[in-house]
């Protein structure tokens, strides 16, 4: 066929849900059951008084699939609203990583030097190890992690993306 394959797009989607038992299982089950991708998913209560939680998820698919994902999420009964930050315009994505590096000598010093460049903080230290805390866009974390691997990275914990739109407008 002459037409090109539809391109795969990465979208950051915010789902505002009632904080009730099973709501996360509903969202995850939807993705698993319908074969959608989840690159990252974070969830936490954001309004304790109203019992409202916010799910930030990063997914990828063709434009038709992305549209389906949003429509499917929106029809879940405990979902208040679904927002596509990627479509809506500029937004901030942040992720936190805790990175354990075991090294001595020059490699240990180099890891500390690079941490400084990436504005990673040392949150735990022994004679032969550091735990770095670094925050940023997922790409920045990827870059830092890549540098730490040859310097003695032994363990990595990442939170997944939290995202919010730029500007004064709220959801």
């Amino acid at each position, binding site marked *: 066929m002459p037409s090109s394959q539809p391109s795969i797009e990465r979208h950051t989607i915010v789902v505002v849900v009632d904080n009730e038992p099973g709501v996360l299982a509903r969202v995850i089950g939807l993705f698993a059951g319908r074969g959608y991708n989840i690159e990252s998913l974070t969830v936490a209560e954001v309004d304790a008084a109203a019992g409202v939680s916010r799910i930030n998820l990063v997914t990828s698919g063709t434009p038709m699939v992305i549209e389906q994902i949003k429509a*499917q999420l929106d029809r879940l009964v405990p979902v*208040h609203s679904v927002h596509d930050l990627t479509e809506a315009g500029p937004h901030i994505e942040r992720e936190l990583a805790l990175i354990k590096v075991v090294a001595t000598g020059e490699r240990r010093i180099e890891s500390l030097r690079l941490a400084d460049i990436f504005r990673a903080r040392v949150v735990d230290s022994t004679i032969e190890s550091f735990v770095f805390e670094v925050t940023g866009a997922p790409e920045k974390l990827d870059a830092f992690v890549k540098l730490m691997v040859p310097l003695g990275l032994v363990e990595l914990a990442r939170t997944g993306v939290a995202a919010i739109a730029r500007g004064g407008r709220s959801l």
Partner: protein
Amino acid sequence: MSSESAATPLNGAEIVLKALVDQGVEVIFGYPGGAVLPLYDALFKQNRLRHVLVRHEQAAVHAAEGYARSTGKVGVVLVTSGPGATNAVTGLTDALMDSVPIVCLTGQVPTHLIGNDAFQEADTTGITRPCTKHNYLVKDVCKLARIVHEAFWVARNGRPGPVVIDLPKDVLVAPGPYTAPESVVHRTYRPRTEPDPAAIDRTVEILAGAKRPIIYAGGGIINSGPEASRLLTELVERTGYPCTLTLMGLGALPAADPRFLGMVGMHGTFEANNAMHDCDVMLCVGARFDDRVTGRINAFSPNSVKIHIDIDPSSINKNVRVDVPVVGDCGKALAAILARWSDRKCQPDRKALGRWWAQIAQWQARNCLAYERTDRIIKPQYAIERLYALTRGRETFITTEVGQHQMWAAQHFKFEAPNHWLTSGGLGTMGYGLPAAMGVQIAHPDALVIDIAGEASILMNIQEMSTVAQYRLPVKVFILNNQYMGMVRQWQELNHGGRYAESYSEALPDFVKLADAFGATGLRVGDAADLDDAIRRMIDLPGAVIVDVAVDPAENCFPMIPSGAAHNQMLLGPADRPGDGRASEEGMVLV
């Protein structure tokens, strides 16, 4: 809280029943067990709600589906924990796929035992999450009344579907407050029912300019209520546009309407499928471009502008890209279209429409539902034709099982009104028809209710003959017995070199004796000359009847779009073979 309820606090079970009564429930289909004994005890002490005891929980859900689809009300199911709930899963999935409003109450072990692998414990909310529209686990009796009311609201509003309420036994015996249904406002679920006026304008503009239009309507019309069917008929009359219906939509437009092209899809008519393929404007109302309708998706109606009316936004652009999405209730959208059509004094393009109808007449002339007439051997199509002819003029409800007989029923029985045709479309559940017929008969005690069955499907819920006997339901089971799982055999013939692996119905029971064993009447007919008499006897006998009709075992269901083929590549009969006589490689992997 009223003084009455303050004086005598209700327990959880009584709250549930009071909520059901306040929701207008009259009948519950269920099966008792340990976890729901408090509910059965409460049922025993009242007489507002009627309980119908089935013989298997799957049948309870199908019966509730039959009740719901023939009345437009919510069907209610009550089953116990563990196996009671897991047995209901097939029925729930069926109701989800076909958008049937069901509230299913399941028992659960007491809250302090949840997660302990207690006797008859199952993670019911976990298991039913993907096969319900929504589900609840009630851990606090104070929330019980509100949840029951909310469940009914969710089941019947928006795109209808099944809702499960899981009820731990301790919650059923705990005293708690009752809240009336008026006080329930849903926090999050507010489906859109009013269509966007701009989308309606655009729809009317496109419809009025159509040269080769088709209206393609489905089960959403039935779910919207009889008024939507009336409006669809009015739209078809006003425009003179041809209309086809999906399996789920049969009856939405009277079959006798000259603009009805018959059913669309895999076993739809030649004229309906070709009109779908060649149209320039397609108005889809309450249907979802299911793979059984579209055939090969990249060859589906390649040159048409598509308008899609659906209450569920996720149905839009799921399988087929449409040009004008209209989110809202079918009935409201049709009313708005008709009003706009009148306002703008729209007139169809008579000349173009004349040419289009002339083309359609050529397709109709192929007489695609024709079959070979035989003297003695009963062709299954003939059996349905006679059944239709001899039941005309009565209030008749038809349910089916799943397979060839279902497709023949859809092709050869003519439905003049909505809610009279009940079949498992989305899930394709063998064993649906008999329990569904029970539900219909409970709702319409004086109507003629016929389950058109196959000899294989009927055995999947044959135990329900006992329920039929208990409630003296005059359900008629009309078995097209070809001694095969006919549709499986047909596919094996078309796609697998005629190797009929496990599709022969070995060791069938004697259906006449079987009927007798359950206190019903059994009739057997094998000669076309005796068919009419058998059907008349079936209708005239006051009680339940099983008619075992020995039909031509070799007959296949045509016309057919082979899997992986397009609408304009239909097989019209056994002599008609695609390419080398087999489905395409691509089609082989499709179901």
